[in-house]
């Protein structure tokens, strides 16, 4: 351990699925205690808070609820569902600068039990969406990813069968995860003939709407020595963002994973070929496929052939989204937290029946907004 190394020392899910016996705040409190217990730390040790999508001034509200008074560093960056991976990057920098020692990244949502989800965007007078996008009835962000899928098929000849690899693999991984929402068998026929949502995306190409969340604890080398589980070192981190309005996306089949991946791999000093398991935010079938290309696991346009033949499923040589992902395990509105937690578990080698073989390097990749943002973390146990 070097003095500037930063570790994830705790990672815990909140209750998942359909949660009627807890509020979103008490869900986070449960996960916080479990994650801090893994870390060998208590809530009294937390002096950095990284919270969003938990109400206004989320660090204040949740800090009060958890009993984290007078933290030295807080952050409520808002770049969408992958924000928690961005938080891990920010926490790393704050810890390296000595601005905090123990960072808590937390989130929970009851979007399913409270029926909060809508495909129509909240109106805003600050941007041009209300004038130039909302009147056309684009479902958000479904329409964005549907048009990315359609363009990928047009430009590169990607087939529906190739796309179906993703929901099929997700379901097979979910069958190995007792906490997964959908664990019943899924066939190619089911995927290809499921209800059309936004052409070419069908029901099984779209993520779940479930309750859930989690907590991740990040700290420096000194405090990581107290951890009760293997600390997971952050080898590299990167983030970026591009656009908000769909008309402004420079290339709809490319995401800012190009930039977040470049920075994360650059910091880590490793290459995509060194990665043993990838957790890439799967809001829709096309989402992890674009990430595989943009992070450099294959060339742009070649991901259809890359994933063919069950490569991303259990037993394949490119294990992807081993929890079952947003498509079959859980999608609590902002999936990035669960992407990160699963990457930590894979890096520790504690994922049980769904553990990918011989994991030395695990990558967690998040996206957010309207194909807006990306954040990438490269993780390994020492």
């Amino acid at each position, binding site marked *: 351990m070097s003095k500037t190394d930063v570790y994830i020392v705790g990672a815990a899910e909140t209750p998942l699925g359909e949660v009627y016996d807890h509020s979103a705040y008490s869900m986070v409190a449960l996960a916080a205690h479990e994650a801090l217990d893994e870390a060998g730390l208590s809530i009294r040790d937390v002096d950095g808070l990284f919270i969003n999508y938990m109400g206004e001034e989320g660090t204040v509200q949740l800090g009060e609820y958890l009993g984290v008074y007078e933290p030295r560093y807080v952050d409520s960056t808002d770049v969408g569902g992958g924000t928690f991976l961005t938080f891990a990057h920010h926490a790393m920098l704050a810890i390296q600068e000595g601005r905090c020692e123990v960072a808590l990244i937390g989130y929970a949502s009851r979007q399913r039990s409270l029926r909060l989800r*809508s*495909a*129509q965007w909240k109106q805003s*007078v600050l941007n*041009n969406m209300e*004038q*130039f*996008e909302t*009147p*056309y*009835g*684009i*479902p958000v962000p*479904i*329409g964005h990813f*549907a*048009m*990315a899928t*359609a*363009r990928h098929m*047009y430009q590169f000849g990607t087939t529906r069968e190739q796309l179906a690899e993703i929901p099929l693999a997700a379901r097979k991984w979910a069958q190995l995860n007792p906490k997964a929402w959908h664990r019943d068998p899924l066939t190619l026929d089911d995927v290809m003939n499921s*209800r*059309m*949502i*936004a*052409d*070419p*995306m069908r029901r099984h190409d779209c993520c779940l709407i479930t309750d859930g969340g989690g907590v991740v604890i990040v700290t420096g080398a000194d405090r990581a020595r107290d951890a009760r589980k293997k600390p997971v070192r952050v080898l590299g981190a990167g983030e970026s963002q591009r656009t908000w*309005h*769909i*008309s402004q996306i420079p290339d*709809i089949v490319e995401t800012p994973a190009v930039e977040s991946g470049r920075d994360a791999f650059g910091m880590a000093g490793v290459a995509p070929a060194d990665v043993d398991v990838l957790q890439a935010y799967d809001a829709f079938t096309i989402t992890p496929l674009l990430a595989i290309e943009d992070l450099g696991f294959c060339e742009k346009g070649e991901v259809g052939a890359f994933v063919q033949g069950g490569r991303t499923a259990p037993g394949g040589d490119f294990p992807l989204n081993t929890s079952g992902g947003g498509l079959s395990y859980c999608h609590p509105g902002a999936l990035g937290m669960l992407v990160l937690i699963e990457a930590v578990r894979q890096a520790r080698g504690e994922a049980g029946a769904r553990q990918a073989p011989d994991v030395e390097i695990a990558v967690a990749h998040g996206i957010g907004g309207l194909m807006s943002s990306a954040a990438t973390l490269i993780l390994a146990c020492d």
Partner: protein
Amino acid sequence: MTETKQQYGDPMTYPIWEAAARYELLIQHCKVCGHYQFYPRPFCLNCDSDQLEWKRVSGDATVYSKTTVHLKIAPEFDPPYVVALVELDEGPRMLCNIEGGAAEIGDRVKLAWREREDAPPLPIWMPA
């Protein structure tokens, strides 16, 4: 005190909607570098110049991507309908609906207008 008049859009975009009332599509054009930009800003994104003017464009465009929406997202939308990104011949892309026939990615489309009760006509596109 400045007199303000109720206009559709905002202080940057209202010329687009004033022109829409005449069924004309205006796009911002940079007098220095020739860049067309949508949506409008006070500066050219390509060269930083503030020498921007409005140009009327034909609306001739190519379909960049599209989806047929089958999801009911709000009472005012009646699926299935086509949502598309079209690329104007001048460069910028606009989100729209394609009506009056089918158009695939790469197909040529032309400008049309949809009347609205509470707002200026909305630019949409149809097969060329």
